[in-house]
């Protein structure tokens, strides 16, 4: 009997089920450590798994954890884009101006990286996370965020500046 429009057999379906079961902790952990909210991580995990099943029914796919992580990364980027749009709407309503550029610092403290990242705006957080936490190249980050490479580089520069500014603010609050 054929599966997935005649392109998938029952053994491949069993393999996909096994992969989804086994990779769930890694996919869920990947998403949770980047969005830092359990509810959002669960939603994005569900979206990623359903997208994987849809792709499985449409075309040949590599049944690997990396393939699932790639899907999850796209879903995470979509989530950040939606969040950025919402933030822009809120900022437009409140009349909030964007952060001003500040001189950079050579070294950063990663001890409170999660807290600092959560204070960034969504696109800056997405750019820094994909570029440095995931270790993707700038063109890959640009592709995931739907921007040009040049625009992504500019976004990364501003994200770093914002990161340092928030890091300094948190550190000042802790010392004060």
């Amino acid at each position, binding site marked *: 009997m054929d599966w997935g429009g005649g392109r998938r057999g029952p053994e491949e379906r069993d393999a996909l089920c096994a992969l989804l079961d086994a990779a*769930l902790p890694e996919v869920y952990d990947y998403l949770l450590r980047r969005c830092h909210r359990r509810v959002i991580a669960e939603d994005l995990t569900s979206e990623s798994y359903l997208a994987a099943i849809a792709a499985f029914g449409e075309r040949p796919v590599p049944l690997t954890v990396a393939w699932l992580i790639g899907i999850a990364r796209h879903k995470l980027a979509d989530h950040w884009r939606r969040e950025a749009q919402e933030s822009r709407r809120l900022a437009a309503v409140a009349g909030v101006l964007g952060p001003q550029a500040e001189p950079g610092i050579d070294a*950063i403290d990663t001890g409170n990286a999660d807290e600092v990242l959560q204070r960034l705006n969504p696109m800056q957080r997405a750019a820094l996370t994909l570029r440095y936490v995931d270790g993707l190249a700038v063109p890959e980050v640009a592709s995931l965020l739907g921007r040009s490479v040049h625009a992504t580089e500019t976004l990364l520069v501003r994200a770093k500046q914002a990161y340092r500014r928030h890091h300094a603010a948190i550190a000042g609050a802790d010392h004060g």
Partner: protein
Amino acid sequence: MAEPMVDPFDALHRPPGRTEPTAAFREQLLARCRAELDAMRPQTPTVLPLLADADAGADRPHRAEEPVRTIVSTGSRPRRVLAVAIGAAAAVLVAVVAMAVRDGRERADLVDRPSSSTVAAPVPTTTAAMSPTSTSAPLPAGPELPAIRPLEDLDATVLLAVPRGTEIVSGGGTLLTARGNVVEQRDPDSGDVCISATLPVAWDVGMLRFSTTVSGLRPAAPAPPSTGCRACSTTSMPPPVPSATPSR
């Protein structure tokens, strides 16, 4: 040798970890995934014998034990209907063209006839009675009205060729169309309708289309009198003369 540039933000890199989701979430997600995979399984098609022709089984009574089949005909029925429609349209077009050609020839014959321009002297009104049921009968062509003859018969309409200046005394018919300057008048005494057709100089024959009956025709006078019509002052035609033998 220069040291490679190190981005301090590289310290943010984290190796992949394994954070177990809740058992409820795991069960719910995997159950949904299995349902999605089951939904992708193609259904076994029910193969029913196709009818050779959609019309073949139309008259056969349906048996209760056989399934109801809805067959979308891909045969030649739409093409047959289309061919019949095209044929009917072509036939109508040919008929219309033929009628137009025949009408044009008849009108050309009237214009070209030299006898139609010769109008005799005033004579008593000649009656050309035509009823709706007798419109196909040709008008009596006497020596006084050589050019008057029916051109076209319809159910209650007669088309007459009228020499220039001819008066048509109608017994109640309605003027439908006319060539030339036609004035409809009504005689106050008899109530008959007098229609004076004053045609252009270049025309020898005018054509008037009446409905129902035409009770009288009178050839035109050689020279129009100056008195004019009592009912209409815009024409130089003589006053209407009541029909000598009205049809009604």
